Structure formats: C-alpha cells, structure tokens
C-alpha cells in the first residue's frame, strides 16, 4: 500500500504507457486483420497457407520472439509493438475467418439472389453477421495483449512490466505486485466491457 501512496504518478504513468501500447498494437492489428481475414475466408488454399504462417509466429514463445526482433529493430517501443501485433494478428484473423464462414449459406444465397454484388454482400450481410465472432476475437486479443505487454519492459518499451521487472530485480515485491495487479484488473475490466458489447450487437 505504502508504495501506491508514495508513487501515485509513476503508477499512473506506467498504466497509461501500458494501455497505449496495447491500444496502438490493437488498432494496427485490426487494420491488418480485417482485410487479411476477408481474403483468407475467400481464398481457401492460399488462406490456409497464410493462417499456417501466422500460427507459426503464434507458437514462438513471447520472450524468444522479442529476443529475435531486437537485432532487427533494436531496443524500444517499435520492437514491442511488432511482437504484440504479430500475436494479435493470429487471434484476430482466425476469428474474422470463422465469423465469415459461420454466416448461414441461406443469407449469402438470398443476398446474391436479390442482386447484391459480392462487395455489397460482404459489407451488408457477411460482416454484420460475423461481427459478434470478430468482436470475440478482439476481446481475446485485447486480454492477451494486456498480459503480453508486461514483457515490453524487457526491450525498454515501458508499461506495467517495468514495475514488475524493477520490483523483482530490486527486492521490492510491493512494486511488482502493484504492476501485476493493475494489469490483471485492466484485463478483467476489458473482458467484461467487451463481453457486454458483444451481447448488445448479437442479433440472430
């Protein structure tokens, strides 16, 4: 407790850094994942190949991935963001594909039969129908990134991990505990919020 009372501004600053890392990575990942997911959903063969590639990245342990990226991009926020985006992509793309493939054939058939082009079918029928599943992916990606972003401190990219790392290295368990607790709270809060949003937009 006393740590919190003595360093409120540092805690606030690190939390803000953490949220910023996660949000930037999410925005970039979503911007890539939506078109990529649509492409994968529509081109089965090449799509499976792409998905396989993303899966390989996903299976690399996170610390190892950071270590691999440092020689290429140096120490700092860029490296941390690349790692976070890479992890989020797998989750997001997989859910975009699952969402689109999950749209009942009757709806796509009706859309085409009524004279929608394939672009109109995508935006007016497939994406609205896939939205709950895609949002589910975004939720999973968000909580994964909140956890992963604590590792950003290893490449000097700030965030709540800094508190944890410093706490562990300088025998200051309170500091480490506060860092982890806030990350956990952030994850729980995001999960609850996004779940509620998912429920709101699901219309079947």
């Amino acid at each position, binding site marked *: 407790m006393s740590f919190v009372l003595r360093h409120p501004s540092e805690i606030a600053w690190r939390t803000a850094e953490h949220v910023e890392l996660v949000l930037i990575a999410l925005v970039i990942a979503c911007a890539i994942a939506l078109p990529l997911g649509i492409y994968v959903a529509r081109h089965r063969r090449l799509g499976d190949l792409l998905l396989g590639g993303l899966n390989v990245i996903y299976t690399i342990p996170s610390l190892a991935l950071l270590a691999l990226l440092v020689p290429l991009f140096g120490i700092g926020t860029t490296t941390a963001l690349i790692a976070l985006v890479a992890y989020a992509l797998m989750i997001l793309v997989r859910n975009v594909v699952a969402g689109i493939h999950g749209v009942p054939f009757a709806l796509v058939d009706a859309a085409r039969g009524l*004279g*929608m082009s394939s672009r109109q079918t995508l935006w007016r029928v497939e994406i609205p129908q896939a939205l709950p599943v895609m949002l589910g992916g975004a939720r999973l990606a968000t909580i994964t990134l909140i956890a992963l972003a604590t590792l950003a401190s290893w490449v000097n990219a700030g965030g709540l991990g800094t508190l944890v790392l410093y706490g562990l290295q300088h025998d200051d368990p309170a500091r480490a505990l506060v860092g982890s607790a806030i990350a956990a709270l952030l994850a729980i809060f995001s999960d609850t919020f996004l779940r509620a949003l998912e429920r709101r937009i699901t*219309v*079947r």
Partner: protein
Amino acid sequence: MKQHDTSAGAPVRLRDVAVRYPGADRDAVAGVDLDIPGGALVVLLGPSGCGKSTLLRTVNRLVVPYRGTIEVDGHDVTASDPQALRRGIGYVIQAVGLFPHLTVAQNVAIVPQLLSWTPEAIAARVDELLDLVRLEPARYRNRLPRDLSGGEQQRVGVARALAARPRVLLMDEPFGAVDAIVRTSLQDETLRLHRALGTTILFVTHDVDEALRLADRIVVMKDGRIEQDGTPLHVLAKPATTYVETLLDAKDAVRRLSLLCARDAMRNAARPVDGAPQVAASETLRAALSRLLEGADAVAVVDEGRVIGSLSFAEIRAALVANER
C-alpha cells in the same frame, strides 16, 4: 390493386440447359427445354436431387449452365449483368433468408435500395408491400425477423421478393419449413398474389399436394430431366411414366377429384334439390363427394347464393371418366 402492380409476367424460355457441378460425375440438369408463357404459375416437382432447384437457379444466374440458353422476357440471361438481372427477378427461398440484423422494413427495402430509389419511394413501397402480404405496416415495419412467426417471416420474404415489381418470381421450396396450416394459408396467398399481379411464377417443391394446388402447369423432374410437363389434371390422369404415376399417386381418384371443379361437372338445375347439402360452384368435386358420403343422393351447386345445378355420384364418376380420356 394499384395499377403498377398489374404489370404482366415475362415469359421464360430454356433451351437445352445443362448444368454439372464441379466434381460430379453426372449432370445435375441434363438438357432441359422449357417454355413458360408470361403470367404462368409453373411448378417444378420432384424428389430432392432431381435438379429442380438447380434448374430454377439458372434463371437468375445463381447457377451457370455449361450448355444451353435461358431467356427471360426475350433477353439472354448470360448476356446481362447478373446483379441487374437478379434485381429484376423476385427470389424466395425455403430458409427465408431474411437478414437477422435488419428490420422488416429494411429487409423489404433491399432491392429498391440497390436500385437507388428515393427514400420516400422506398418507404411508401414498403408499406404497400406489407399491406399486400397482409402484415399491418405500423405493427411490423420496425420489428426484427426473430420476433416473427415462421409464416410471418415467409410473408416478409415474399414482400421482399416483390419489392421492385419483378415480372418473374422464383420460389424455391418456400413453404417447406412451416407447419401444414400455415403452409395452406401461404399457398392461398400465393395464388391470390399471382391472380392480382400476373407475375410469372416458377415454384419448386417436392410436395405433390402443394404442386397440384398451385400449378397451372406441373413439370415433373427426375435425374436432371423432365419426365412430364402438363396441367395438374393431365399429369394425374395420364402419367407419362410409371415414375410419374408413383410419385403423384396418380391412381388415387380422390386426389384427382380435388382438381375438378363442381361447376364443370354439375348437371344443370334440372331437378329440384330442395334440402340437399350445398357446395359452392368453385369448390372441388372432392368436397362434393365428401358431402354426398355424409348421406345425400345429390348436392346442390350454389353460385352467389343461387342454386345453379346439382351433383350426384353419377356426375362425379362421369367427370372422372371424362378426365381420363
């Protein structure tokens, strides 16, 4: 009925149409010729896998044949832009295919919207269509499909298909998923709409009774080919093959009676039929027979409250025999 709703149906002409799906070892549709005059209600009948749905879907180019030509209103469908073609052809499917995230009004408005009608024209048309399928606009306009019964959903599906006043309407097993009572009332609605609008309707079903009830003309299909093509009565009375005979249970005299009209079989009001049970002139001989069996020698045929003739077992039999010739 308003004037613009009476645009006559367009003719549909198929010549040697053949379709094969990728990976299949035989044709789903194997060289079909079909001439459908404008305004007809033609039912494609057959078991699942006989190619009837595939054939239907060639008309709006959801399926592209590898051989043959299809003309709607004299225009080759393969020569036209598929989206423009489909916006001009109504399409109703079994699963209804209403978009769950859109309201009733938004669903019905899809095609007018694709055709860039003005919002005012669309709103007016939506209300008009909901009236047409007997769903009170004020009550149904803003509801979501999930809040409707199966029958109501399919009414919206029909309204949506008719939105841009198509001259051809394709219906692919549209009432397969609703219960028998609702199905009968939807069939009645279909007949009423067909009479009111004069739209050419191609209707796919595997339900023999539905086919007999609706069709001007029945096209019986098997293995991608037409087995027989004729009026319901003709197909029942003179099945071309044993397949047709078995499928339609054509020997069933009662079934045939349900296609014959009391007015056409009755004897003119020569003898008095006081106190006899009555049937309307537009009712079927099946209804007349059932009243006879309840215990009467003759039934009176009534038109607009006036007795115009009578029917006994003799006339009913004579009608059946005449039908066999």
